[in-house]
């Protein structure tokens, strides 16, 4: 659940979610669940001319499976900590497998 844990720290931050259908949505990350479903508020679609039907949408719930990328604010990510969290996860999984 590293990603869940990770994304939880990014709530209330502005992120850009790129979907698998090429729509990029920037908004405030309101919440995320263990399926990595994402709730965004105050959204802006990056290529608004191409997707005019989304121009009046203010908030969205995105199913985790349709997300391609999430662009994060770099200053909100503690890389050292993230590396350690990855190591812990790997250790835990190794422990489980053994």
């Amino acid at each position, binding site marked *: 659940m590293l990603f869940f*844990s990770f994304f939880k720290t990014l709530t209330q931050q502005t992120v850009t979610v790129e979907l698998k259908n090429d729509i990029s949505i920037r908004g405030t990350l309101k919440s995320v669940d263990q399926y990595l479903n994402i709730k965004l508020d105050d959204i802006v679609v990056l290529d608004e001319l191409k997707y005019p039907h989304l121009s009046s949408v203010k908030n969205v719930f995105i199913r985790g499976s349709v997300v391609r990328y999430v662009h994060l604010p770099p200053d909100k990510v503690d890389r050292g900590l993230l590396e350690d969290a990855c190591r812990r996860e790997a250790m835990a999984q190794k422990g489980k497998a053994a």
Partner: protein
Amino acid sequence: MSFFGFDTTLPRDKAGGANSKGFFEHANPFNEVAKARKLQAFQDNQEEVLDFEDTYDGLGDQLQEAGDDFNDDTFGGGAEGSNDRGGVGKDFDFFGSTAQVSTAIEEEAMRYNLQYPSRETAPPQSRKPKKTGYEKYQDPGYIPEIEAKSGAWSHKPSTHSPGQPSQPEDIHVSTSRHTAPAPEAPQPGTKMMSLEEVEAALLAQAQAHARAQAAQAPQPPYPQPQVFPFPVDHMHPPQPYQPGPPPMPFNQQHAPPPPRSASPRRHNRMPSQPSHPSQTSQLRPAQQPLQILQNPNRARHSPQPSVDRVQGLPPYGPAQAGAAPGITHPQQLLDLSEAQRRAYLEEDAKRAKRNHKIFLLSKGNGLMTPQDKNFITRIQLQQLVTATGTSADPNPEASLNEDFYYQVYSQIRGAPRQHPTQPLGHFAQTYLFQTGIRGGGRRQHANGDNHMQRMQQQVQRAVEAAKLKPKNKQLIIEGSLGKISFSNAKTPKPLLNIKRQDSSDARPASGRKEVSPSDRKTILKNIEAVYTTLMRLEDHERQSPPPPTEGDADSIQAHLDWRQKLQELNTALWQELKVLDPIVPGSSIPHPFIAFLSFAKGKKAMPRIFRLIDQEQRLTILTMIVVHLDQLDVTKDARPAAGDSQPTLAVREEIELFSQTVMPCLLQYVNEAPINIVIGLLGLLVERTSIAVVAMTKIGLGMMTMLLTRAELSKESGVVSDQEWQQWTALYNRLFDTLEPLLGLLFPGPVNSGDDIYIWQFLATIGIGASPDQQQRLVIGVKDRVMETVQQSKTLPPEMASVRLGNVNLFMRAIGLDVEMLG
């Protein structure tokens, strides 16, 4: 004829006539067999999907194709068409011919029923499939499967068996609504009971009940067994959480063997269903108080949503149900004492009131199917299981591991919303508390508590069951590449776990030994090993027991154990760092520790390592770095390529990282080191490394600056003996002699290339310790650069100029001069 040229002949005008079989023209003799099988399978496993062909009773196939005779009358064909009215005739007398056709159908149906008496209740008109898959929802008692599949509810379906069809004297055979079609079994036609029918049946049953009571018959015959499908479960106090089988002895007519038909457990939690007259209730007086005390509405607040919000309850169903559960015969009431009776009646009135209220609140009932609710309940429980699963773990570290990043990040930077230190396990309790408030209501607080307790028990069971069956998480299919894992809340996406066989690992391992110990992969592995131990060490440090108190053997022992573990981990870390691996002079392979430092994450580990090791180990590391100063990536690769004023970006980043991570550690140590150590280090530097390489780099110069400064400061503080100082001076002279020809080359680029403060710093440090003669040589060596910088600063904006001049002045002042003097 047709405007568009279509064939406008209606199907009924084609050869078959109005009562032809239409779509069902092929009478397949195997249909019946397949159907029977499917039906059986359906009853064994209700999740079987039915299709029309399987459930179609085939009656249509048996119909004779009769009634064509009047087609001509109807449609004006043939000779009679041109009778008295000539041509037009009865062309539009649809009713007449239809009536004749329907008569024919009825006749046919009658004949068929006589031929096949066992099918008499299946009316020939019912061409519709008998089972649509939805008629279950018309059954007010139907609760599909309210239990999470984890088997958490130890209440097994098979432990409670209703009567079996094979026991004809058992009137409760009617429970086998889904049993295989037996002659005396309820007819399939009754499955299609509408709401009104159910209502009527209940009324009829209530009347029959009253009649039976009036007669006081010990074994009242039950007139309409098939219309009342519920088992007599109210005889059993609901014991949904009892792990073992429910007590059977009271229930002699109920056959112990588990039914092979549809799972009866769906009836088990329905004490509020209208009661069923039962001959056993009189035989069991001992059970009565329990029945009275038993709250029939408890199930209404049970987490299984489908229990209470059953679709299609008759409007007065709940109220009726309230009177039912404990006492079914007035005689029973008479047998009770006055107080008991009053208590019972009061209870009864309360129940009725509450039931009425519930009924009023139940307007939205039935919007969701039992399956929907079941599904949601499962999701919620699964999440609870996940949450409590971590909290139930005896090791609190597990929850930290699970949510490490979030918890630590929250502590470091402040949580965005929630309490940062709130352990995961509390979420479940919070959740339970909330549902308790919501479900229990204000008045029924005791009931709400009870509900919460039961919910907690269920969660506990779910957790235990989940723990007991870890192997169910994976499925290994024969011949597959790996295991298929099922998803759960923790790992929502199923994974394909590739089986890794030890044998396949063995071969590369033997080959790997020949690989150099310092190839990239090995180094990275070493670094990861260091990090792993480092994290263990940090965890261990966090779990440090409170300082031992005098006389408390336990605390002292705990502390000793902790120290011992700490020591073990420290040793492991030290070995993994490979600092003490033998140094092979002239080897092309870098020392493992130096290789370790050549990776960014190796550099990043240094501050954390330095914090956890002792002074001696720090000195060892410092010595290793000094000895290999010209082999570090930050010095070796730092010389800019020809034509460039700077090393490549990647190298610059590494240098930057090194100065930010490793240098402060070393500086911290050196700043406290005695002079003899500084002398020793500088000696190693001069003897073992190539000063020409080291002096050309930022890190090398920084290191030398560090040592020289420390020596000067030691001398200033007056703790240096003459002998040591002589040693130092000799060493300094050697260094100076080596450096002198390089002074002009120290600056990597032309004067306008910027970042040269570290060089001026170094020159200043050299200048402080230099003798007047050496200072002279120093000035000669860098004179050109000083002049250039001063010249250039005149063309720069004032702020930048002052910075540049300040840098130069750093050096100039060290040797007693000032840029101002250069004018």
